[in-house]
């Protein structure tokens, strides 16, 4: 988070800016794929770690933000 923000928020913004008209759940799946691919070396980690989003939806329809 120190240099450019958190993996989740920065990847989310990147993916949504590129595809604002697509279904949000599909985009979040892509965000999660990208976040899971990254190796993270946190401030108190001695070896790379992984992160994974948790997406909980009770949406009843497609949700496209634009």
């Amino acid at each position: 988070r120190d240099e450019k923000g958190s993996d989740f928020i920065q990847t989310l913004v990147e993916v949504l800016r590129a595809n604002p008209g697509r279904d949000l759940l599909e985009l979040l799946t892509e965000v999660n794929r990208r976040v899971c691919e990254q190796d993270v070396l946190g401030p108190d980690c001695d070896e790379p770690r992984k992160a994974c989003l948790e997406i909980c939806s009770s949406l009843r329809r497609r949700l496209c933000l634009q």
Partner: protein
Amino acid sequence: VEPWRPEPAPGPSTQYDLSKTKAALLLAVIQGRPGAQHDVEALGGLCQALGFETTVRTNPTAQAFQEELAQFREQLDTCGGPVSCALVALMAHGGPQGQLLGTDGQEVQPQALMQELSRCQVLRGHPKIFLLQACRGGKRDAGVGPTALPWYRRWLPAPPSVPSHADVLQIYAEAQDSSGRGPPSGSSHQADILTVYAATEGYVAY
């Protein structure tokens, strides 16, 4: 059993109508979270680009988290106009049980904050999006695959799976639900909610 058929092309009935007001609330603890300002700027810019009326509050205390959510709900309920969608981003350090920590070090449960919007009258039937950038515990994921762990550590047995506090609560809630009450009328308070956590339960968010 009917054979599976491809879904019809998205239409008015299969997609939320977002033509009315969209509102976003970003609550972020920046103090003691280096780089967090980048998230606030990036997310705020995105929300505005997507047409959300965006409110940003930084460095809330635990109580201010609750108050800001309550105020946000009140504003939506009293604005008089239709609202299509609400987005709430909660960014802070997280406690071991998934609590959010305000700038005063006090804890607030994200579920309590999310329930606030479930009570919002104008958002009934409309999507409510929650983004949570916070740790949900102290566990760290070493990953899987050939480069994740040395071979000798891959064969260590996994710790036994014990029901979590959430599991116990769920079983209790299900027992309550099946205790003879009739079906509820109207739509569910729990419908139309999308929650995205930066980490799975119990794990660190980076």
